[in-house]
Every structure is written in structure tokens, then in C-alpha cells.
């Protein structure tokens, strides 16, 4: 046992010792004992670490690959989306997170040369089955985009359009109810109830985004996909959307793509980290942001790659 008192520095060599310590040691404070080693992205990646699967999933994705022509943009991604949860997808630009969530309501079908393999189910049903009609699918799995994109119609019609074409209301009265309850759930009712006939585009950016959320809610979805829903909004409007996400979780599953790490930390229960088309790590959000298990995750969230 090393109990020599003489090891303790005297006044004289104290300063010298501080110098040695701060220069040569403790320079790389990135403990890595529990970290997975860095993998070269050209290698076939190992399985996603963490907890990609849940007990009672609303959606399941198994070995999903997405190709744009010959380029493979998503590599063997397997993950579950649970009911009543917010799962955030983070990762550097081009990592495939947007491509991935666009698979969840077959938005990629519209892109030429895009091919999706693997299996994605919603409530046990394969959404890529050839008998599946994508129109009701996209009502069940709604989407909110980066920039608010209200239709060039009145506020009322923006929300009423979906229920109308999906035949969700039998009377004007029912339609009114759907519009009102959707706007209420989107936290917009109080602000617009006296101007429902005004164009949707007359609202502020944050209000427009909530209008788009109301539009997605109106057709009774199970899952709402949000692709950077706050990136065009100021902090106040962002705060309102985030509060809204918390509220909506009671009723829906929400998948949110975000470039704001703080936002992912604030709104989601689980976080998934994508890197170059691979799903690297999925875990409880608090765990991912305090003790990520993969070095790539850590490097990204601490701002050391990106």
C-alpha cells in the first residue's frame, strides 16, 4: 500500500506538479470503458445498441433498408415505436433520419428511384403490403413538416379538408366539431376562433405550424411524424409546440426529427441516434443524454462530430 507521506508535494514542487498534470494528463477526459469501440462506417455495422424494441409497439420496423438508386441511405434499421411515446431521431445532416421517418407513412413512394426493403408494420399490419392504400395510411400516420405549409385556404378549410376527403363527417355540424376539437388539441382554438374564414397563411409562423398539427390531428391519426417542426420558429413559438407535443402524447405516438439536442432532451421519452444511415443507439432520453453507450452518440451530442 502506498502510504508514503513523502509523496505528497512540498511547497516547492507544488507548482511544477500542477504544470505537469494540466499539460500532459487529463487532457482527454473522455472515459470510454463502457463505450462501444468506434466502427468504421464502411464496415457492416453491428446491431443497434440500447433498447430499440418495446413490449407493446404501435409500429415495428425490421431490417429496413432504403436505396436512392444504387445508394443505400438506410442500413438495416430495426426499431419499435411505442404507443403514447415521443421518440426523437437525432443525428448529423444526411444521416438518414428524415429518410427513415418518411418510410413510416410511405412518403418515399413519391420519390423516383427510391426503394424500401424490410418490414414496417402499423398495429401488426404490413404497410408496404401491395393491398394497402396509402391515402388512409397517411391519415393514420400523419406528418408535420419543417416549414409550416398550410393550404391556400381558410383556417377552417385547412382543418376540414382531410376529414372531408376521408369521409369522416356526415354533416356540417360534425365537421364543425372536428375542426373545433382539432384546433383545441393543437392549442390554437382561442387565437383563431373568431377568424376561421381568414386564410391560413395570414397566421404567424408558429400559429401556422399549430394549424398544420391541427390538420394532421383532424383525420384521427395514431402516429404523428414531425420533421424538424420548430426549426423555422422562434423560442416562444417553439415552446408552445413543445408543450403541445407533451399534450398530444396522451393520445398519439409521436416521432420527431430534430437538430436541437435540447429539444430532443425536453420532449422525448426515447432517443434514437442515426449515423451515416445506421441506427447506432436507442435508449431512454435521460440515459442517452447523461450516459450514452456508444462513442458515436457521445461524440455527436457533445458537439465533437456533426
Amino acid at each position, binding site marked *: *500500500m*502506498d*502510504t*508514503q*507521506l513523502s*509523496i*505528497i*508535494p*512540498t*511547497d516547492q514542487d*507544488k507548482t511544477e*506538479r*500542477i504544470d505537469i*498534470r*494540466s499539460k500532459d*494528463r*487529463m*487532457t482527454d*477526459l*473522455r*472515459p470510454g*470503458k*463502457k463505450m462501444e469501440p468506434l466502427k468504421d462506417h464502411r464496415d457492416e455495422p453491428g446491431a443497434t445498441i440500447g433498447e430499440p424494441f418495446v413490449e407493446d409497439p404501435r409500429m415495428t420496423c425490421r431490417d429496413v433498408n432504403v436505396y436512392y438508386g444504387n445508394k443505400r441511405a438506410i442500413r438495416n434499421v430495426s426499431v419499435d415505436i411505442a404507443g403514447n411515446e415521443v421518440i426523437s431521431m437525432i443525428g448529423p445532416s444526411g444521416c438518414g433520419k428524415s429518410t427513415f421517418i418518411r418510410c413510416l407513412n410511405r412518403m418515399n413512394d413519391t420519390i423516383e428511384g427510391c426503394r424500401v426493403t424490410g418490414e414496417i408494420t402499423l398495429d401488426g399490419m404490413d404497410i408496404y403490403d401491395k393491398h394497402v392504400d396509402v391515402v388512409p395510411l397517411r391519415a393514420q400516420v400523419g406528418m408535420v413538416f419543417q416549414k409550416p405549409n398550410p393550404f391556400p385556404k381558410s383556417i377552417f378549410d385547412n382543418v376540414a379538408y382531410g376529414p372531408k376527403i376521408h369521409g369522416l363527417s356526415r354533416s356540417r355540424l360534425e365537421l364543425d366539431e372536428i375542426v373545433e376539437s382539432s384546433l383545441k388539441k393543437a392549442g390554437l382554438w382561442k387565437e383563431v376562433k373568431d377568424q376561421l374564414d381568414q386564410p391560413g397563411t395570414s397566421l404567424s409562423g408558429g400559429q401556422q405550424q399549430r394549424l398544420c398539427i391541427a390538420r394532421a390531428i383532424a383525420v384521427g391519426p395514431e402516429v404523428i411524424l414531425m420533421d424538424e417542426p420548430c426549426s423555422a420558429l422562434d423560442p416562444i413559438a417553439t415552446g408552445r409546440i413543445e408543450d403541445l407535443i407533451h399534450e398530444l402524447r396522451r393520445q398519439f405516438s409521436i416521432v420527431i426529427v430534430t437538430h436541437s*439536442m*435540447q429539444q430532443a*432532451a425536453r420532449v422525448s421519452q426515447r432517443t434514437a441516434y442515426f449515423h451515416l444511415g445506421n441506427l447506432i443507439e436507442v435508449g431512454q432520453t435521460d440515459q442517452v*443524454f*447523461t*450516459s*450514452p453507450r456508444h462513442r458515436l*452518440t*457521445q461524440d455527436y*451530442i*457533445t*458537439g*465533437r462530430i456533426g
Partner: protein
Amino acid sequence: MTKHFDRELEKLKKKILSLSALVEERVYLAIKAIESRDPDLAERIIRSDHEIDEIEVEVEEECLKILALYQPVAVDLRLIVTVIKINNDLERIGDEAVNIAERIQSIAKRSTYSFHFDYTEMAEIAAAMLKQSLDALVNLDIDTAFRVLTLDDEVDDIQSKAYSQIKKAMGEHPEEMTYLINLYLISRHLERIADHATNIAEEVIYLIEGEIIRHGNYL
């Protein structure tokens, strides 16, 4: 942004390391004062405590600034939290060195006593624990950190030995009661230093592993 942030972290690390070197030195002086019962040395320890207090405040302010400006996550967040806690432990160790110095001052007034307890071993272990816990921090060495935890029991054993022997001496020499109380309190202060060193080791383990092992969870 990252470059700025890394520079801030580097500055913080340097500051906590210079604080630890300062505190280690104070403990060393306090142990020397126990051996020599030198009231002048004790006085020097007491007078210089404000230096430690000042650095402690600086480190804390630095941590708060980094939290507010950079919102660190993962290992960076754990580092800041660890530094805040170790900072606190170091300052308290400095206080214990002052406490020892005060005991020495009251003991040193008389030169001959009928009873003496040899604190050399206890002081050596406590100082070694402090040194090793700080080495574990510097080198991010989890094995050294765990070793510190095992040493704490030895310190506790010596303290209970001191307790029973000094209690017996109190019965035999009640006229030296004040001295004996002071003598016993030295063991209490050394034991506290060992406890704070244990805390530092536990915090280093948290920094490395991301797991809180306090309250005996490591067994």
C-alpha cells in the same frame, strides 16, 4: 463553439487541479502539525484557508457559467457535476485541516501529558486516500478509485481504537479532560478527511462509468 467550449473545460480542469494540489498540501501540513505540535505551523494553516475558499468559489462560478452558456450533455455534463461535487469536498477537507490546526493550538499550550495517541498511521492512510482519489481523477483511473473505497474501513478502525483508548485515559486522568477531548477530535477530523476522499473517489467512478455507486451500491 466546440473550440470555445473545450477551452473552457480545460480552464476548469486546471483550476480544480490547482485547488486539489493546494488542499493536499494543507493536509500534509496539518499532519506535520499533529506530529510536531507546532503552534506556529497550525497558525499558518488557519491563516491560509481563505486561499482555498477563494478558489472554491471561482471553480463553482466557472461551472455555473459553463452550464448556462453551453448546456453540456453526456460526459461533459458528468464532468461539470463531478467538478462541482469534488470542489465542495476539497473545500471541506481544507476546513478539516484548519480544525486539526485549532486542536493542535489548544494542545500545544502544555508540553507534557500523561497519555498520547499515535496518529501517524491514521494520518498516513487518510493522506494516501486523498492522494489516490485525486490521482484517480487526473488519470481517470477507476481501479485506483475503487482502492480508495477499501481504505476507508481501516481509517474507521483506527478511529474506534482511538475512541476506546482515549475514553480509558479520561477515566484515569480526568484532570486532562480538555486535552483528551481535543486529542480525540483529531481522529474525528482525520476520519472526515478520509470520508471526503472516499466521496471524491466515488465521484470519479461516476464520471467514468456514469453510474452512481454511493451508499454502498458498489458491492
